[in-house]
Structures are given as structure tokens and as C-alpha cells.
């Protein structure tokens, strides 16, 4: 039962009891010597490929800077959008985000937060101050999906006012609608509508989208009972990466920075795998001779240059278990970079799930909570999928954005879909693997 339903303290105790396992690994050192430490000749084509990937990573960074900006809507006059990036969901709270902001000195309580044209929630300064472990540029954001969250709203034609917040008791994720002026109303887009200067600065987000009204029957045996909810335009569970905190016109101007460094910020440590193999056939993992005492944490990313190699599944005291990209069940927050005639476009894929490896390709489950719907020019030629380069997104602890996964064709339309990811050349034998290290209070 302990194997099926893990109990954290007992598992930590086992880490102590199984310290001799490290010795077992050392016993096979001769076999590791036979494998040899591989020295990779950096031929011109490999170097060119790596340079190209680094350039594309820089392009992705540029595209990310504009990702959170509204597309159809415009910010109200004088309102400034302060860039923020989702770092993780703290302690399993689905309705709360931890974000890193561009300039912490301008943050106030209850400032509204948006992503693109959609409303996300508001800054929770009180919760941030209560958590003494947090670095000064990290803040909590309460999502509109929170059970006690409420925001004023109106249909976009202005005919029906209501309060929105929490989740409706329906099967899929639907935002809750409370006290609508017209209870029979069941269609149309709903946008934020807060009175000015009441309870924070919610009015700064007026006009930003909350979702589309939809009436559903939660119980088929009671056809007369129907509930109205909002179909959100965002994937609140796994698809939030880049955000904007809206600052009032009278707020001090923020200092622009937020290029969260990935390569040279000192939070990576080089590692190598003693034995390049995994004993359980469908799994693809490696033991790693570094553990919690050396700064390795559960979920940390392993990278080879700009490429994602895998994630730490379990960090023991002195050693860790690493799941490589082909390990079935490995979750990866991901973004797709699409090259369209209009330029680069980012589509948030949310969390992908590895289903297994077939040679140099990896099958990934894409739930497609936000499906690819826009008819791009490539689909006009009768194709039902679009080529894309897949990168990691932010939003999970110690998993930085902008690490390359590979290339895949994204199917158009509602999911779930299975993507066939083609790994970059040489990905099966990474040369310079590094692990992202955790620090106290620093996700």
C-alpha cells in the first residue's frame, strides 16, 4: 500500500535506510568505465545546429515578451502593463499562482492581472507578505477560479450584469456565474465590469474577457434544472505562463527588466549519469549521483545546452531519480512556436504527457484545453496540422521556460491529441547535462 499511496515522511525515512544503495551503484563502476566517458567531437554541423537553437531560443524570448499583451483590446489610457511570469503553483493550490514580476516596487494589493485579452485574477499582497520565504520579486496571484473570488462582470452587449468567480459545479472547467440580472441569458461573451475606485483597482481590467456563457444540465435525470457557467478562454490549470499586472496611471513607472536568465545564473550544476540505462523496460530514467543535500529538488529540469533532457522524479539525500524525455507519464509544461506569414506566434500547449519513445521520436499526449483553431494559411491548403517547434513553458518549480523539446505537427481542432515529437539530432546521447538547483525561497 505504501508503494501505491506514498507517504512523504516514510519515503524520506527510506532514503536514509537505503543509503547503502549508493554503494551498490559504486560496485558497478567497472562497467561504467567500460562505457567510457564520451568525448564528443564538436563538428561544424553540430555547432551550427546548437547556434541555430540558441538563436531560436532568443527569438522565443522576444516573442514571449509580447505574449501577455492584449491582442484585440487596448489598455486604458495611462494604464501600464507590468510583465510577470508564472513560476509555480504553490503547495498544490490550483487557484493560486506564484509569479515573478518585472519591478516589485510598484506592486499594490488587488491589482488586476491579465493574459492576452483575458482576465486572470488579482495580486494577493497579504498572502505574499505572510510567506517570509519568498524572494522579493515573487508575488502570489489569486485566480478567478478561486472559490471565494468574485469580480463584477457584464455581457459584452451591456445587457446583463452579474458576478463571476469560482467554478460552476459542472463537469468541465466553467467559471461560476452569480446573481445574473437576466437568469435566462445563456449566450454571449462576458467581460470584467468593476466600478472605479472600489475595493482595489479592479476597474483597470474592465472590458477584459472572462469567457462565454453556456447553459448546461448537470443532472440528465432533471432536464429542467440547468446551470449557467462561463467557458473560459484560458487554460487556468496548466496554460498560464506570461502575465501582465495592470498598474494605475498614478503609479510610479516600473523599471523594465525581466529577462530571467537561464544559462548563466549559477543555478545549474553539471552532472553525469554513472550508468546510461534503466532497468524497467517501459521507463526511461537514470540514477543521478546528486541529492537534496547537493541542492537537487523534485521536478527540477535537466538540460543539455538549450535542450531539455529530463526532470528529477525523486530527490533522495545523496542521489536522485531522473526521468528522461521518453519516460511514460513525464509531465512537461510546453509552448509551441509557430512560424506564420504574419511572423512568430506562440500557442500555449499547457501540460504535455509523455506516452513513450519510438526511436528518435517521443509520443506526447496534448489535452488541448486550448485547441489550435485559427485557420492559418498552412491549413488552407487542406492540411489538418501545423508544423511547430516545441519549447518548455514556465509555471512549474525549477522548470525554466525556453528549453527545446523538438519539432512536432500540431493538429487543428479540439483534443486530446497525440503529438509525435521529433527530437533534435544527438538528443539520445546528451553531452553536457546540467541540473537546475533549488534554493530556499527561490522556486
Amino acid at each position, binding site marked *: 500500500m505504501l508503494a*501505491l499511496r506514498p507517504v512523504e515522511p516514510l*519515503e524520506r525515512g527510506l532514503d536514509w535506510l537505503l543509503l547503502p544503495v*549508493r554503494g551498490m551503484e559504486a560496485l558497478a563502476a567497472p562497467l*561504467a568505465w567500460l562505457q567510457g566517458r564520451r568525448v564528443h567531437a564538436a563538428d561544424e554541423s553540430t555547432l551550427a545546429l546548437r547556434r541555430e537553437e540558441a538563436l531560436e531560443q532568443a527569438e522565443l524570448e522576444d516573442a514571449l515578451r509580447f505574449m501577455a499583451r492584449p491582442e484585440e483590446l487596448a489598455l486604458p489610457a495611462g494604464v501600464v502593463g507590468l510583465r510577470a511570469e508564472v513560476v509555480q503553483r504553490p503547495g498544490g493550490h490550483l487557484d493560486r499562482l506564484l509569479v515573478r514580476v518585472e519591478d516589485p516596487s510598484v506592486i499594490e494589493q488587488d491589482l488586476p492581472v491579465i493574459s492576452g485579452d483575458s482576465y486572470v485574477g488579482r495580486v494577493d499582497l497579504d498572502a505574499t507578505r505572510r510567506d517570509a520565504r519568498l524572494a522579493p520579486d515573487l508575488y502570489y496571484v489569486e485566480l478567478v477560479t478561486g472559490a471565494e473570488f468574485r469580480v463584477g462582470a457584464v455581457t459584452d452587449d451591456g445587457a446583463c450584469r452579474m458576478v463571476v468567480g469560482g467554478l460552476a459545479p459542472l463537469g468541465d472547467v466553467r467559471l461560476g456565474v452569480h446573481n445574473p440580472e437576466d437568469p435566462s441569458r445563456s449566450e454571449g461573451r462576458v467581460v470584467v465590469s468593476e466600478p472605479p475606485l472600489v475595493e482595489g483597482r479592479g476597474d483597470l481590467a474592465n472590458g477584459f474577457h472572462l469567457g462565454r456563457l453556456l447553459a448546461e444540465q448537470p443532472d440528465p435525470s432533471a432536464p429542467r434544472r440547468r446551470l449557467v457557467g462561463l467557458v473560459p478562454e484560458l487554460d487556468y490549470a496548466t496554460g498560464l505562463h506570461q502575465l501582465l499586472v495592470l498598474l494605475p496611471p498614478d503609479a510610479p513607472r516600473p523599471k523594465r527588466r525581466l529577462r530571467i536568465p537561464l544559462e548563466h545564473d549559477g543555478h545549474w550544476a553539471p552532472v553525469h549519469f554513472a550508468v*546510461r540505462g534503466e532497468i*524497467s523496460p517501459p521507463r*526511461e530514467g537514470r540514477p543521478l549521483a546528486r541529492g537534496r543535500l547537493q541542492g537537487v529538488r523534485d521536478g527540477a529540469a535537466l538540460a543539455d545546452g538549450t535542450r531539455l533532457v529530463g526532470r528529477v522524479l*525523486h530527490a533522495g539525500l545523496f542521489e536522485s531519480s531522473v526521468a528522461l524525455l521518453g519516460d511514460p507519464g513525464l*509531465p512537461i509544461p510546453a509552448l509551441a512556436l509557430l512560424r506564420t506569414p504574419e511572423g512568430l506566434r506562440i500557442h500555449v500547449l499547457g*501540460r504535455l504527457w509523455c506516452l513513450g519513445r519510438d526511436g528518435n521520436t517521443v509520443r506526447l499526449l496534448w489535452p488541448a484545453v486550448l485547441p489550435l483553431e485559427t485557420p492559418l494559411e498552412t491549413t488552407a491548403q487542406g492540411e489538418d496540422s501545423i508544423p511547430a517547434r516545441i519549447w518548455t513553458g514556465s509555471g512549474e518549480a525549477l522548470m525554466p521556460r525556453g528549453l527545446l523539446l523538438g519539432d512536432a505537427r500540431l493538429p487543428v481542432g479540439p483534443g486530446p491529441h497525440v503529438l509525435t515529437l521529433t527530437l533534435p539530432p544527438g538528443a539520445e546521447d546528451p553531452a553536457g547535462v546540467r541540473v537546475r538547483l533549488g534554493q530556499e525561497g527561490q522556486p
Partner: protein
Amino acid sequence: MRRTRPLAWLMLAVWASWICAAQALCVARSPLGFWTPDLALILLVACIGSLHRRDVLAASLIVAMARLAYTVEPAPAVLAAFLAFSVAVQLLRRLAEFSHPLLRVGLCAGGAGAFVLWFALVHALRMERMLEGAPHPGLSASLSAALLPACATALTSGLAGLVLLDGLVRLPGLTPLRRRRW
């Protein structure tokens, strides 16, 4: 003889560790892939056949720890699998003649297949638990994905058991662990 027993246990650990490392390399980097036989389990079955009853648990624990050094499977799952296997073998020893080759080959095949399915079940349930509410492949998908590897490992482990069982028990250094037959 008594003085050499600790050394024999150490030798079992060394052999188990080497066999597990070789098996891990075969699974990941040879064309065999999931057709690689579960050599560690074959070693355990070979040893159990010649060990005294009171030593079976210790041998299982040593082989389990060797396996743990080369796998990402959680420690409780590996320990539980080997514990259950050793209990099953003990029961079987009371019911049947353990030295019969078919029985031991069957144990190798059945144990190897069951191990693959067990680890797939543990992995799927842990993922389901960790990502409560989030969309994920699901238990049945994970188990069905493990079905072919389980059958393949069972088949090759049975065949490898047929060839290796008698040889593995005679590995250098393990003689003091063998049961006296007189």
C-alpha cells in the same frame, strides 16, 4: 565456512549490482530493449533454489537494493515486489519440488512479467495521485502500454532462465551461501 558467509553475501551484492547494471544497459542501449530478460530476477531464483529458507529474505533484499541503484522506480515499490516474490517462493517451496527446472523457469517468466506490470501500476497510480484533477493518460492507458513489455520480458526471462539458472548459482564467491545437502 561461517567466516566466509559475510564475504559470500558481499559477493552476491557485487554480482547482483553488475547484473543489474548490465541489464540496464541492455534495456536502454541495445537492440533488445524491452526484450531484455530480467537477469536480476533469474539470479535471485537461482540463488533461492540453493539457499536455506532463512536466507531467502536477505537475498531478496540484496537483489532489490541492487535493482534500486539502476532504476527510477520508487523504493517502496521495488522492495514490495521483491518481498512479495520471496514470500511467494517460500510458499511454493512448501508445496512443490523447487529444484524442478520447469517450476523455476515459470517463476522467472511469471515474476519478470508481473514485475513490469506492477511497476507500471505503481507509476500510473502515483502519477494519478500527484496530478489530481489534471488531464493525464489514465490508468488503463498506462497498463496497456506496459502489456507488451511485460509479455516480452516474461518470454525472454523464461528462456534465459532455462539456460542460465544452473550457471548463475555457481558464480564465484556464492558457494558458502549454498545449503548443505548432507
